[in-house]
């Protein structure tokens, strides 16, 4: 905590209720956790499918990649994989940042920058996959 370098002493005590009051609604508390599990479940079959696809695409030419993505099924699964992966990634990285960055301004900046990067990378992947497959 902020005064951890000083010799320990007690100058004030607050109850847990007093601490929590005024910090806003707790209603959205489980949403992050639940979204992380749902994307994880979706990514299990999608990742297995992607590993098979990646093996098929080793050493493939550009035309072969476009041909693979031109199937509506492949295109659908690839888009689902990209969206699921980046959503799961930003949820996970947010927890990592919040665990290790303690200064509030730095933490907020890092989380927002990370989310912006994830959105831009996801969009770049989606546009590229659509351009190849459509």
């Amino acid at each position: 905590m902020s005064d951890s370098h000083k010799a320990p002493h007690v100058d004030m005590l607050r109850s847990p209720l007093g601490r929590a009051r005024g910090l806003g609604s707790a209603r959205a508390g489980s949403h992050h956790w639940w979204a992380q599990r749902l994307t994880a479940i979706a990514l299990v079959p999608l990742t297995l499918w992607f590993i098979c696809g990646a093996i098929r695409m080793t050493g493939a030419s550009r035309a072969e990649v476009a041909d693979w993505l031109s199937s509506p099924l492949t295109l659908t699964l690839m888009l689902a994989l990209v969206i699921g992966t980046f959503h799961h990634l930003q949820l996970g990285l947010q927890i990592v940042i919040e665990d290790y960055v303690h200064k509030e301004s730095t933490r907020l900046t890092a989380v927002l920058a990370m989310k912006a990067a994830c959105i831009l990378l996801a969009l770049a992947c989606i546009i590229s996959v659509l351009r190849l497959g459509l």
Partner: protein
Amino acid sequence: MRDVRDALMVARNTDGKLVRRPLSPHIQVYRWPISMALSIAHRISGVGLGVGTLLLTWWLVAAATSDAAFATVQSFMGSAIGILLLFGWSAALIFHLFSGIRHLVWDAGYGFDAPDYNTSGWAVVIATVVVTVVVWAVGLMAW
């Protein structure tokens, strides 16, 4: 000391002096149980896979851009550094997949007993090694 969380972190020692309690975990003191190592590895592999999405994005964007851009990314993937990155990325992906399934089973409420989580931990390690080797054997044959 400003709140109750800080108050819980102090106690009196045998001389009656107020001292700060030691923080856990003592990573350098503990024997490393399999679950502790895998928990840390799950987080590290997750962050690594995040960096690895740059590789996937580069590959997809290059394929959608031009033959020259795609040739650049393909030659990088085929270089020694590229193969090392791909190997690390695939191993991290396969590990995070199996370790993630283990976490989902825990979330469903199963596998919390000591023999169970030790067995499932080693099963994750063995499955990761076997599947990574199989994927690379098949991949190198197809290359």
